């Protein structure tokens, strides 16, 4: 029995951390996130060479062939430094291709994602902001053996940067009458841009599809049968967001603990006062706890799929709820300096605002835990 990481995973963590320490301290993160692209194309090439973009892509398609647990290791570290990059989105697109694509389709797109030549994203949500199958209203019109898509996807992660969109659309009236299209950014009728957002390190945007023709070979899986694959992909992405939130929250806790050790008021470090030290202890308790749930969820995604949905939801519910509070407490515990643009505290608050709704907030996931538990 071992509910810990392997030596290889420890090595992966050390490598990731080394790269980020050298290339993405927070002042650099700020610069990258404030750029128009929202990420560093130069660093993107390098992290692709390091194997991050293809981490879960099978070796036969040019990736590292690793699993959800390995991805947790990677994302805890990118989260710790709030690293701005379309890594999570690209990995989610790869997960969708793995879940729903044929051999030929995998061979066609996965190598480009693994190499970083394409930036992928899953464009699931629409204006109704629903995560279930009924939330997909975008209709596909049948035209010979192709589909024509006309409509809009909202809340698309890294819409501005993505070059390859995985787009769920509707083929019939029953909730699960869905299909999945692979839509390149360059296709006629495609437009995508990011919205302005609180968290500059995480972009969310809109994808507009104005009569985009999707040929049959770019439809993943059998129309009407893809929901299970899509649901698995959503679970995978949810776990990934939760893992990245662990690192981000640990970063927030480290920053605030350091501040509490050094800031002197009334002749004593403020970290001596329990009204300061106890919230920090509570943060530790919560982060440790959703970490354990997230690790278990990742293990289940790799090894015990039946257990995965319940643990994914428990982990994300816990993370959404706890990180939201951590984000606010971090500002309060810093006093006025926490309210400044210059000091880093607000970066974590803003990340917590991004994490909370992403693939479902606490209420959404508690409802799902209740339903999965037969309540």
């Amino acid at each position: 029995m071992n509910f810990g990481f392997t030596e290889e995973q420890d090595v992966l963590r050390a490598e990731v951390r080394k790269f980020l320490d050298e290339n993405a301290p927070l002042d650099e993160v700020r610069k990258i996130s404030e750029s128009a692209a929202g990420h560093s194309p130069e660093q993107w090439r390098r992290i692709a060479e390091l194997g991050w973009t293809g981490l879960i892509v099978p070796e036969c398609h040019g990736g590292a062939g690793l699993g959800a647990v390995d991805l947790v290791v990677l994302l805890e570290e990118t989260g710790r430094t709030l690293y701005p990059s379309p890594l999570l989105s690209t990995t989610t697109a790869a997960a969708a291709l793995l879940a729903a694509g044929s051999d030929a389709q995998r061979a066609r797109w996965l190598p480009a994602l693994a190499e970083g030549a394409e930036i992928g994203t899953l464009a699931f949500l629409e204006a109704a902001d629903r995560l279930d199958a009924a939330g997909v209203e975008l209709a596909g019109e049948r035209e010979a053996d192709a589909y024509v898509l006309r409509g809009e996807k909202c809340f698309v992660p890294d819409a501005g940067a993505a070059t390859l969109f995985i787009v769920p659309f509707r083929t019939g009236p029953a909730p699960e009458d869905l299909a999945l299209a692979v839509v390149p950014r360059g296709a006629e009728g495609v437009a995508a841009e990011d919205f302005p957002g609180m968290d500059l390190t995480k972009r969310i945007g809109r994808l507009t599809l104005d009569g985009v023709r999707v040929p049959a070979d770019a439809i993943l899986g059998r129309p009407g049968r893809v929901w299970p694959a899509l649901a698995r992909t959503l679970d995978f992405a949810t776990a990934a967001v939760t893992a990245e939130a662990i690192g981000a929250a640990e970063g927030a806790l480290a920053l605030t603990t350091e501040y509490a050790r050094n800031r002197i008021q009334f002749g004593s470090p403020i970290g001596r006062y329990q009204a300061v030290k106890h919230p920090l202890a509570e943060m530790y308790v919560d982060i440790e706890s959703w970490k354990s749930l997230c690790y278990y969820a990742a293990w289940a995604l790799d090894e015990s799929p039946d257990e995965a949905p319940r643990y994914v939801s428990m982990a994300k519910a816990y993370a959404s709820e706890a990180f939201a509070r951590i984000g606010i407490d971090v500002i309060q515990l810093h006093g006025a300096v926490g309210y400044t643009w210059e000091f880093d505290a607000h970066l974590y608050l803003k990340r917590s605002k991004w994490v909370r709704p992403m693939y479902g907030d606490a209420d959404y996931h508690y409802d799902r835990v209740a339903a999965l538990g037969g309540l």
Partner: protein
Amino acid sequence: MDFTLTPEEQAFRDEVRAFLDENLPPEAERTPEFYGTWQKRVREKRWVGFSWPRDVGGGGASIMQQAILKEEMAKRKAPPLGTCFMGLAWVGPAIIEYGTEEQKRRFIPDILDGAYHWCTGYSEPDYGSDLASLQCKAVREGDAYVVNGQKIWTSIAVWSKWIILLVRTSTNPRDKHDGITCLLVPMDSEGITVRPIKNMSGGALFAEVFFDDVRVPVENRLGAEGQGWKVTISALAHERSSIAEVASLMRHLEGLVALARECTRNGRPALHDPSVRRRLARLETRIEAMRTNGLRYLTKQLKGEPLSSETSVNKLQRAALEIEIGDMAVELQGHAGPLTRGASPAKADGHWQHVALAWPEVVIGGGTPNIQRNIIAERILGLPKD
């Protein structure tokens, strides 16, 4: 990560399961005679004191075997292994680590057999959280210590035969942890008076214990003079995989869900109320967090790294859960909530009302939540001591 068991571990698990198939009837069929037979059988298997060395009568089990045994017992809602709770939890481990051969021979078999109860005399009226400042005094006179002072909150003092006692043997210590000595004292010693204290549930499980010139032979000292803090604290920090606690919380939660099905809100089962459902899911999530935290701690122990302050994480989780579960159960019952046993509208004949008043046993006994928060903040996060 890998949860598969080795062939030996699997064989052991199968052995436990087979034993349970044969020896453990369903809960409704467990008679008083059954409990007696059960204790004899598990003792024969050496599952009482399973982690203790074989030469003192324990099972000599590995950490993994202990976890498997506990897990299987919890799954089947088996009764405890052994009846001498405090003896098994910390008195025994302290004697095994610090006791003389004579003390081991004298006490360990009785603890394993559940021959009588032990109680724990640490807290005093003026020293609870600040235990290391305790003042109950022992003065050496020839081959005996003479003890004077008072202990309080001593659980099950009334029916215990022995007490593990912390006393101050030196009044001028360099630091307050020095000068504390551990004595093992028969409760029928001359000069001991026990006065039960009624708790808010109406029961009287704890007591005040007064010591008035109580003579304790030197051979009853556990460890060296002045070593009492180390002797007792190391034993308290014993096992921490939380398997038993998680199992008990899971049972509470199952009961709570059944209660939510039975109680109504606005004419509909409370279980249909979204806020009730979310609260239940949140409790389930917290309990699973404790379980998976426990798996990480177990992994750490299996790698040979001792656990320390991180165990405060699950203590805090558990404290919050114990309070919330009982409280929610009472709230769900509406106006029947504050009614107790004997009141017909109270569900399960007042069971939940009892639960709602029993949480201090685990929340306050054994170190309060604030003290756990201090431990995490100071020892893990490195914040200054207050």
